[in-house]
């Protein structure tokens, strides 16, 4: 049986796809058989972030509707050989993801993989509900900013009431907070919510803090999951998050600002 992990947030643009790509790559790099599914029907982008956009032939909806087999639709990652990508359909209606159809595909994947990572679309509509419905665990990606935190709380409410685990009265979906685009300098100046602030408001365990970093855009430009930029702060922060997801204890890093001298603050704009 695979562990099913949804990467969700409510709000768009906070880093769900970036996180899905990095978490799934990180799990696979440690030898776990991992598949990452794009649930964003009509606006697929995981393929671009994973650099396999030109290898997409069949998609998730084709498999649900019996037009292709799973083997035909799954794309094997070229960098990590235990990682597969199941792309979303770019042309179908969102309603093509039926509860039964998604369940059938997830059950089949569950027999072959250790981890199924579901990359949720933004919003709380059908696609997002389908992405979280079968989850055992949820990574709630949040930016330290008012609208993102509020939407994260909303999505937590949905996880607690509308997931399969909630409907069946099973143990609740295990929730993880992943705070991304974190800028310790601005936190120190009192301009940005701190990790502690967001933890206090959302009251769920912290999986990791991803610092705001230029490396993230550079990596996505090239179709490289940022976790593979092993020397970068963001890459290492994702690596730590994967380790914690697997139960390792790791101290949180990149949460305080680098001390800058008086002159560098004056001349580089601190």
């Amino acid at each position, binding site marked *: 049986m695979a562990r099913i992990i949804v990467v969700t947030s409510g709000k768009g643009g906070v880093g769900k796809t970036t996180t899905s790509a990095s978490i799934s790559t990180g799990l696979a790099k440690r030898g776990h058989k991992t598949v990452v599914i794009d649930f964003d029907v009509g606006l697929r982008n995981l393929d671009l972030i994973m650099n396999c956009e030109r290898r997409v032939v069949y998609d998730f909806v084709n498999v649900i509707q019996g037009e292709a087999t799973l083997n035909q639709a799954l794309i094997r990652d070229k960098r990590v050989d235990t990682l597969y990508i199941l792309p979303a359909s770019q042309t179908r209606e969102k309603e093509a993801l039926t509860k039964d159809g998604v369940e059938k595909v997830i059950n089949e994947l569950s027999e072959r993989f250790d981890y199924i990572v579901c990359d949720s679309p933004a919003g709380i509509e059908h696609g997002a509900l389908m992405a979280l419905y079968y989850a055992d665990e949820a990574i709630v990606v949040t930016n330290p900013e008012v609208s993102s935190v509020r939407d994260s709380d909303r999505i937590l409410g949905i996880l607690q009431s509308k997931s399969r685990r909630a409907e069946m009265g099973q143990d609740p979906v295990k929730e993880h907070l992943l705070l991304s685009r974190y800028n310790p300098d601005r936190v120190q100046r009192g*301009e940005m*919510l701190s990790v502690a602030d967001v933890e206090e408001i959302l009251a769920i365990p912290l999986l990791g803090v991803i610092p705001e970093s230029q490396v993230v855009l550079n990596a996505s430009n090239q179709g490289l999951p940022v976790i593979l930029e092993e020397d970068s702060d963001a890459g290492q922060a994702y690596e730590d998050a994967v380790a914690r997801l697997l139960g390792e204890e790791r101290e949180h890093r990149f949460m305080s600002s680098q001390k800058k001298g008086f002159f560098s603050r004056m001349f580089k704009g601190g």
Partner: protein
Amino acid sequence: MSFFDYFKSKKNNRSASVAKERLQIIVAHERGQREQPDYLPALQKELLEVIRKYVQISDDMVQVEVDRNDSCSVLELNVTLPEH
């Protein structure tokens, strides 16, 4: 620019604490609503219709809330009657 920014940053108002305060209020409010039973809107609508048989009131003059304590729940009904 950076020279002046250095001094300006000292005076920056701490907007993060404003954000935190606003979030705590709205999140608490929305969590309260989330825990309300599903039938509440329908109940409110029907109550409004019954009251309207006798007194003309507008939609926002009836408020229904459920307060949950450990041992029991209290249905709180607030009806504002129009002035004569």
